[in-house]
């Protein structure tokens, strides 16, 4: 009841008018540019060659990087591959590389969200890695300057799961009895950008496990939920597959091949 009062039409109308009023004052009284984040005031494009002078370690292998596929030449300044993400670099260049004069996507994921709108939405969800809180950056998992942006995939030397286990060390193993889902990668069960479910799970119920473990029933539609050769219908009435007393050690076990403990 109190919320209805707080957000009544009158509040919205007059609150909105007040804000427009402030804007009015600003428009009439102010002769100043307000910069929309994450842009840099007064900066113009200088081209990748300028960046290359100081940041050879970042630019040297960019040609083979995933994101270079998006870098088309600009007819006026040539290649603006770096500035496509870092913003115009003239102020940064003139200042000798001063901090705050260039867009740094690692501290401001807004740059990445310019194209990856879906990731902004996912990081906004209740269960997400703390990128929006500034505790980590996109670069902690993705290297936009070299190789695959989905790190360690394809024919790259490193193992894909190292992206996650470098921080989540307890899941690294090796376990005596591994969960073979780890072969598919952590993303078989988790969306690292964020989900509506706890622990960033792509599903919070038994569907998560059954997608790989649901087996053919004796008779189609016979009312069984077969997994591991057993009917789990009544067990699933109590909850998920990984709840207490069931298959608790989902990442791998050192005592139970069925990952019960």
């Amino acid at each position: 009841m109190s919320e209805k009062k707080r957000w009544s039409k009158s509040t919205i109308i007059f609150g909105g008018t007040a804000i427009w009023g402030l804007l009015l004052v600003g428009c009439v009284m102010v002769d100043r540019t307000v910069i929309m984040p994450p842009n840099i005031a007064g900066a113009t494009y200088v081209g990748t060659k300028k960046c290359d002078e100081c940041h050879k370690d970042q630019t040297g292998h960019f040609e083979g990087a995933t994101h270079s596929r998006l870098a088309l030449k600009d007819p006026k300044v040539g290649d603006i591959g770096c500035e496509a993400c870092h913003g115009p670099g003239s102020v940064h260049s003139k200042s000798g590389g001063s901090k705050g004069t260039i867009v740094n996507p690692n501290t401001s994921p807004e740059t990445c969200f310019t194209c990856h709108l879906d990731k902004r939405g996912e990081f906004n969800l209740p269960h997400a890695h703390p990128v929006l809180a500034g505790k980590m950056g996109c670069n902690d998992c993705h290297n936009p300057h070299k190789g695959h942006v989905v790190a360690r995939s394809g024919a790259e030397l490193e193992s894909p799961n190292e992206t996650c286990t470098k921080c989540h060390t307890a899941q690294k193993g090796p376990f005596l009895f591994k969960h073979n889902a780890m072969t598919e990668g952590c993303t078989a069960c988790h969306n690292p950008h964020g989900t509506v479910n706890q622990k960033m799970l792509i599903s919070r119920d038994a569907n998560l496990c059954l997608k790989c473990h649901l087996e053919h029933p004796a008779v189609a539609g016979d009312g069984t939920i077969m997994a591991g050769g057993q009917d789990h219908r009544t067990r699933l009435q109590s909850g998920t597959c990984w709840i207490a007393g069931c298959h608790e050690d989902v990442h791998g076990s050192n005592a139970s091949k069925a990952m019960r403990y």
Partner: protein
Amino acid sequence: MHATPFHLRRSAGMLAGLTLVLCIAGPRAAAATKEADAFPVFDSYIKISGHAPSVTGNAAAYAERFRTPDSGAYGIEALHLSKDLADKKTLEIDGKALTGAEDYLGKIKLTKEEVGSVEIGYKRFRTFYDGIGGFFPLNKAWMPMGTQELHTDRANFWTDITIALPDKPVFHVRYSDEMRNGRKDSTIWGDSDQTGIPIYNVGSLNPVTADKKIAPAYLDLDEHQKTLLASVTHTVGNTELELEIVNTRTDSNDTRWMNRYPGELKPYPLLRTTPPAFLVDGTQANNFITGYDEQISNADIWAYTGKFETKISDQLTVFGGITYQDASADISGNRQMTLTIATATGIVQAVGGFVGAGGRPPYSYKTNAGSTSEKTVTGNLGVTYKPQKDFRISLALKGEKQDMSGSNLVTYNSNSIVQATGVVTPVNVVAPNTSTRSEKPWTPELDVRYSGIKKLALYTTVDYRFASGDEVGSSTGVTTGGGAAAPVTSFDNVKNNHAHYKVGANWDVSSLLTLRAETFYKDHVNKYTGYSTSLGGRYILGYQFHGYKVTAIVKPMPTLQFTGRYVGQMGKMDTTLDAGDSSESMDSKNHMFGGTIDWNPNKNAYVQANVNVVFATLSTAYPRAGLAANDVLRNADNDYISGNLIAGFAVDKMTNAQLEYTYYRASNYDPAGPPSAVAYGAGGKEYTVTVGVKRNLTDRMFLNAKVGYFDSKSDTTGGNTNFRGPLAYLSLDYSL
């Protein structure tokens, strides 16, 4: 009474319209005049801030969502000091110290041009958890965590030295000590029969179990990872070389605490289980089990890597590398689950307690000796060929060989309880576990890019991982009655085939429109075929996913940009067990629609609006299971809408204002599922709104003040984690 009079609405509308007209007209007049930047970038600065919410409702849920405690946070939000010293040296100091949020950073870096750098730093931040269990809507069953504050701290101390003399090899040494400890929640929830579902003394009258796992659980974490890395890179002629040695020492000691059937105790003498029927109180349906599961691992990993990249000509580059990794770990476990049970002589508590030959002990054990060893050799070799300036082909092959072996000796400690006498008899079973695995994957990859057509870039990537391997495992548990079970040994040949295809284009149609599109397809088959004593056993998992990503950037005028993006992913999975037929195990669909508007109505103002709408569903047993099984599990829907709006504008020459609004809603909670299941679907709604001003107080000092309001409601927890309230934020930026 509360209806707004029409004339007031009209006045407000006219005022707003006038404002709009003036604002759009404003920049033309202002454009010719010299601009003043009210908020220049400081080279060195300190930012002191305080954040104070006033939370009504579940404070722990607030802390988890906003990543700060309900008591707020204050301190140094950012410190950066940059100073050019003599002899081409630069000193940089970065810091942060936010008390409450327990967010700290200290970093010092000294760089000397054409020599190298030395850096030392420490970083730590806290993550909060609400510690909730499940909610059962029938009787609104909700079990709060208790008074434990749940949070984990991640910290990292590092030193980093780089020596980079001109035209000499670059040496890099880094030592880091990362830590994660504290207490966090777990979704391995315990049982409760106090769920409002009728429980009769006659089992056949209970078609739906009252046992719902909704009791919260939590984890104590104590994890350390020390890493020493040494590398050298050098360019010899047209060849870049890199050698690296890494030693990683990982020590983890994590303990999961669980409560099963809290507050429950079966009476003794036992309730009659034959007719006539009567209702049993939930508190008498089962026996309380509480305990912990501690897993310890001390791993020592050495990795040796060599890489090269040789530019043979402007058209041809060859690259490759090899890594050898040797990992060994001591593993141990200590799981102690204590049963509380009524007997003729009183209440007895016993670790791994069970009754009679048919009783199953809650697994309790200690690991006496255990270790694992894993050796991996990985190599890759590739070539990049550019027959034309705008045409690039890269072909690479990766090969791996991984061998793992491990064993341990577990002692199950159970206790047989005779309720008629109260006598408890220990039953200890020594059980060995062994495991060996080997795998040889090969992954060829082809990457082709072409940008020879004006304003158009085309690309395709294909990789195909095929692996053969072998898995042998033997695990030994305990049977009902606490005795030693026969070892379960399995022998499997493993075959993996993972294919990935991707095709995309980036097209600058005009200065007004940019289009990007990509389609992908994944086809995986994982096949486990039994041999030896497992002959005849078989498990095949196959899946195919395909999807699309389409992005359109429309810029109808320099001050206005629309970005729209669609990401769709559809997939199906199938399983085959033993001699059975293959059957579909999953069907999933995920559609994400995103949109962003960036608008500068004039140079004094900007508006950014973002929205994401997602429709996602994952279907397994439902509805194909049929009959009563369809009441147990429905599709997992993960739909949501989220968005935010930011509007900023100049209030006067020294003041900016900003309005921000965020919104999230998910409507996947279906309380109609129970009593046959636990309702897990995420449902809830939340918003935050803040209004702030940033004012230039002096040439060297800014003030930033915000006030706002937040409101979060959760259907999934029955409203038990709702929170709302006002918040205030104040910061001062000062140029050093």
